[in-house]
């Protein structure tokens, strides 16, 4: 549905060329939710603006639904934009219009008859759960409600593609979740292709099918979400995945920690479960097989794109020999084991 071929964008700042996008190739199939993740300044905003040509790429092709947008005249481009909707971090609702009029806006642009507008807008407000707010001005809405209005507005022209520019970055976690649920919901109901950019791995984890990592204007990695979480290839992807897992050795354990085995101490292990780890109750199998016990200190497990992954800090109690065997067992089943020290 969306295809970027060798897209580059060079800005000129004080006559100095700055490469915002460097030879981007990307393809989003129909009905998928595709996430592009990157730190601020990586070029992700420029990337999404290149898809509907709000920003004209310096070179390369942008193909949406089989049409090369870069080859279109301004007039045709304006027309085709009705089918490529966009929502924004700061909602960009018209303050002079009520909720109803905001949602009606893209229909007015297409000179839709009033009667059609009326029924279509009410239908959309129903979909986003804001039927009772039709005659309210945006200034009286909360952030989440504003984004819902923006989503309804984006859907009004029955687009084939929805571009989300940091759509949840200005919202609190609970509202973010409800907006993401709504996006997933419309993705399923309308078979809408969604391209979203974000700096939060949690967003990708929650709704994306595929993810690409952008860094310094280049796509450094691209994979299905499950694969990305199970075997991230680049350091930056690992960093993003790490950012969704928050695990620290507690202070009092740090103080007791010895780098070498002491009599009466047991190893403190960090276990990394990735998508490669077999989906089996490894820990309980291990305790049965090797006569070791686990004292789990902290753990965070998560599930994304059909893949279980996470980290765990555990103190392994047992005979030295048994412990070594147990560690071998875990390693054999694709769990990364790191001995942090002895407590």
């Amino acid at each position: 549905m969306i295809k970027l071929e060798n897209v580059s964008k060079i800005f000129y700042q004080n006559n100095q060329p700055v490469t915002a996008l460097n030879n981007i190739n990307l393809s989003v199939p129909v009905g998928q939710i595709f996430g592009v993740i990157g730190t601020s300044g990586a070029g992700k905003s420029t990337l999404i603006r290149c898809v509907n040509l709000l920003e004209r790429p310096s070179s390369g092709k942008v193909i949406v639904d089989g049409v090369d947008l870069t080859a279109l005249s301004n007039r045709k481009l304006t027309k085709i934009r009705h089918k490529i909707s966009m929502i924004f971090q700061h909602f960009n609702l018209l303050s002079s219009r009520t909720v109803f009029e905001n949602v009606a806006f893209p229909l007015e642009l297409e000179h839709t008859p009033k009667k059609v507008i009326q029924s279509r807008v009410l239908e959309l407000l129903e979909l986003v759960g804001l039927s009772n707010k039709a005659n309210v001005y945006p200034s009286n809405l909360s952030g989440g409600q504003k984004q819902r209005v923006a989503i309804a507005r984006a859907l009004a022209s029955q687009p084939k593609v929805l571009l989300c520019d940091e759509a949840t970055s200005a919202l609190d976690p609970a509202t973010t979740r409800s907006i993401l649920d709504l996006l997933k919901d419309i993705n399923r109901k309308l078979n809408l292709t969604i391209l979203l950019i974000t700096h939060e791995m949690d967003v990708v984890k929650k709704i994306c099918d595929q993810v690409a990592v952008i860094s310094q204007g280049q796509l450094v990695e691209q994979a299905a979400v499950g694969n990305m979480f199970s075997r991230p290839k680049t350091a930056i992807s690992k960093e993003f995945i790490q950012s969704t897992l928050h695990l620290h050795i507690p202070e009092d354990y740090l103080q007791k920690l010895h780098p070498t085995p002491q009599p009466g101490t047991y190893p403190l292990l960090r276990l990394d479960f990735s998508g490669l780890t077999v989906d089996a109750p490894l820990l309980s199998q291990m305790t049965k097989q090797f006569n070791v016990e686990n004292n789990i200190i902290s753990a965070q497990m998560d599930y994304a794109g059909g893949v279980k992954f996470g980290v765990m800090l555990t103190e392994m109690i047992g005979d030295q020999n048994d412990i070594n065997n147990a560690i071998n067992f875990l390693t054999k089943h694709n769990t990364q084991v790191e001995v942090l020290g002895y407590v």
Partner: protein
Amino acid sequence: MFNFLPSFKPFETLFRYLSQYDFWSNFISFCSSFGGLNETMVFKMAQATDDTIYMVILSGIGGTIIGLPLGILLYCTRKGHILDSLFINGLLSFITNVFRSIPFIILIVWIIPFTYITMDLLTGTKTFLGKQAAIVPLSIGVAPLIARMIENALLDVPKGLIEAARSMGATPLQIIYKVLLPEALPVIINSMTITLITLTGYIAMAGAVGAGGLGQLAIQYGYQAYQPVIMNIVLIILIILIFIIQIIGNVIVKRVNHR
């Protein structure tokens, strides 16, 4: 042939109507207790007030007809805006600045030939005097001010809104009349209030060179004939007029502002 608002005289009509009643003579004798005020002068003041309001309204409209498109163009042709054009922007900006630099009292005299021709074309009377003729320099004098104010008001509209409209497939024209103008409306009305108040000042100046209105009255009777009472009453009328314009402006802004 072309005679705009010929019989705009609300206060004169009101006073003529009131003069039928008994209390009118009491009112006139009360007025006469201030030096130099008599019935003729009261009617002169009513007429002058009417003329001033007439000129405020028509030159406000005239100035907007020139200034609004100019302001929109100044905004749209700016760098990075929807009709980005360095040449047009530079040219319009230059013209606007030139006309803004000319002191109004000099502008009136400077464009007398133009006023003369315009009056001939529009009304068939060859003149540059009187309240109708004054509308020409007033409109031209206030248009650059309106243009700059409109430009500023439009610059206040968040750029994200224009981007959103573009992403929805709005044409430049649709962006102007469906996004920019409605969004900037509260600021535009605020600026228009300021403009009309400035205009009231300009009209007093125009009065000094034969436009009529309250300015002329104040100069003629207050300054040249040295009747300070007349001058002071004219000032009070002007103050009231300006307060009314400001209050109306504020009420409208309050109604249209949903930010």
